[in-house]
């Protein structure tokens, strides 16, 4: 999280950050995933981001929606750092839902933030059998307490997922329903 903020800040200062409007309606994400949006979002493009698409309603770092559109085995779920000191969290085909959630937990706590799983249950996502999780995150860099939800599923050995987080007060509840609708609309082509 802190890395993402740093990347965005540095990129913004260098004039490399682009916020692109994502229009409402049906939207193809990657080669195999389609979602339907009932409102516009902002997609953040900057060097050093990835592999997830980063969307926001309120602006970074207030809220963010990470969208994974077909992560393959041995690919990290976060942008790789070159310092060699930080553990990478990599997806493997065949991972169970609890293991995938642990990947997200690892990614979100690399900066010392604190993650608390609230609920993990089976759910339909992308038109297939997946899972849904709820979590709380206390961000180390500024002590802000966030709430989050995520959905995921594996299809043909690739990971499709969306993970949303926003400050627990005001912002999360403002956009939670919208994110749930995106998750329910998601379709992954077989």
């Amino acid at each position, binding site marked *: 999280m802190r890395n993402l903020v740093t990347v965005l800040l540095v990129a913004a200062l260098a004039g490399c950050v682009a916020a692109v409007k994502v229009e409402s309606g049906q939207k193809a994400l990657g080669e195999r995933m389609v979602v339907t949006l009932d409102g516009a979002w902002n997609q953040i493009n900057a060097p050093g981001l990835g592999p997830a698409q980063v969307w926001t309603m309120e602006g970074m770092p207030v809220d963010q929606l990470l969208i994974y559109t077909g992560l393959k085995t041995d690919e990290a779920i976060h942008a790789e750092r070159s310092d060699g000191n930080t*553990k990478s969290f990599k997806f493997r085909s065949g991972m169970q839902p609890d293991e995938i959630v642990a990947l997200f937990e690892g990614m979100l*706590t690399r*900066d*010392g933030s*604190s993650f608390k*799983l609230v609920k*993990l*249950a089976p759910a339909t996502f992308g038109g297939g059998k997946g899972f849904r999780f709820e979590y709380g995150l206390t961000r180390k860099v500024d*002590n802000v*307490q966030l709430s989050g939800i995520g959905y995921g599923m594996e299809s043909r050995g690739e990971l499709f997922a969306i993970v949303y987080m926003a400050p627990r007060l005001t912002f999360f509840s403002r956009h939670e329903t919208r994110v749930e609708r995106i998750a329910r609309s998601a379709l992954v082509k077989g």
Partner: protein
Amino acid sequence: MRRRGFLRAGCACGALLIPGLGRAQALSDWQPPTRFARPDISTDEGGLWAMMDREETKLRRSPFTIRDSDLRGYVHDIACRLGGEHCSDIRVHLVRTPLFNASMSPNGMMQVWTGLMLRVDNEAQLAAVLGHEIGHYLARHSLERLRDAKSRSAFAQFMGLFGLIGAVGQLATLAGAFAYSRDHEREADSIGLALMRNAGYDPAEAAKVWDNLLLEIKAKPGGDPASSPMFATHPPPEERKETLMRLAEASPGGVTNERTWQEKTAPLRHEWLGDEIKRGQHEESLALLKRMIERTPSQAEYLYARAEVYRLRAKENDLDAAIADYDAAVALGTEPPQAHRGLGMIYRLRNQSAAAKASFERYLQLAPEAPDFAIIKSYMEEDRT
């Protein structure tokens, strides 16, 4: 008067830097300075104190600060025994961060991270680290460093001395531990040992802290202690350990208070072990847990934690090792419910459905409010079909 006291202390500390037995001799002669008065705000030191006061206000509100008043009071008492006359100037804050670190800023704000509390075996070992930090405080090393920190980058490193929440986020960085000079570290070691001895602790425990930390660093792939940020500006660890041992031999005896330490930290140990597991530094965690299990074989929490690390690492033979540790924890009868969850996961992976079902059932029975209750139920149903 204050300046004179500081100079006296400085001279005494300087004497401690004489190599060999001279140091041990100086250890017995060392006298702490008198209490520091609050510096004028218009001075560089006054500005530093004001800045640290603001950081302390943030720290008090931080959700990472541990509110357990019993443990806080206990650690504060240890710091007070070490600080002596300076006790009333020391404020201890316990911070939930799974790394080995403590720091003390010039205004008397002391931070003790949970990764340190997990790693020390007894009160004396914690006192060794706190005494070292109080040593920096008494010798006012941070002021010297501030005056050295002329460049912006050096200033950033200087801020890292105090383990500030905002400045220290990187788990890979042992911030707060590497920005003093080697001479300052040697001096703080010596003062810390003198404080330990004065407080009645066994000074021999100080060298063990570094010994134990070295075990973890060496266990890491490519784990060369010399290249560890922990030792970037610290004296070489072997030198440090030997010096501390030699100093301790000159004034043997004292208490460790191991039982009290274990009792006081027991309520939070499960949480700290969970944070350690989540660091994902499997080799370091295994070295730590191996040592803890050898020391306290009847502690089911440690066996469970090591089993989890093996299960998550999942290298060759790791799952067998995990099962052995889970089983040992269960045999003790004080295992956390998650031990059964871990067993169920491994049995499921190995297509041992009946064993997986039994373990999952036990887990859900013991932890009906578990956040992953529904997904575990779904695993059981999948395995049945």
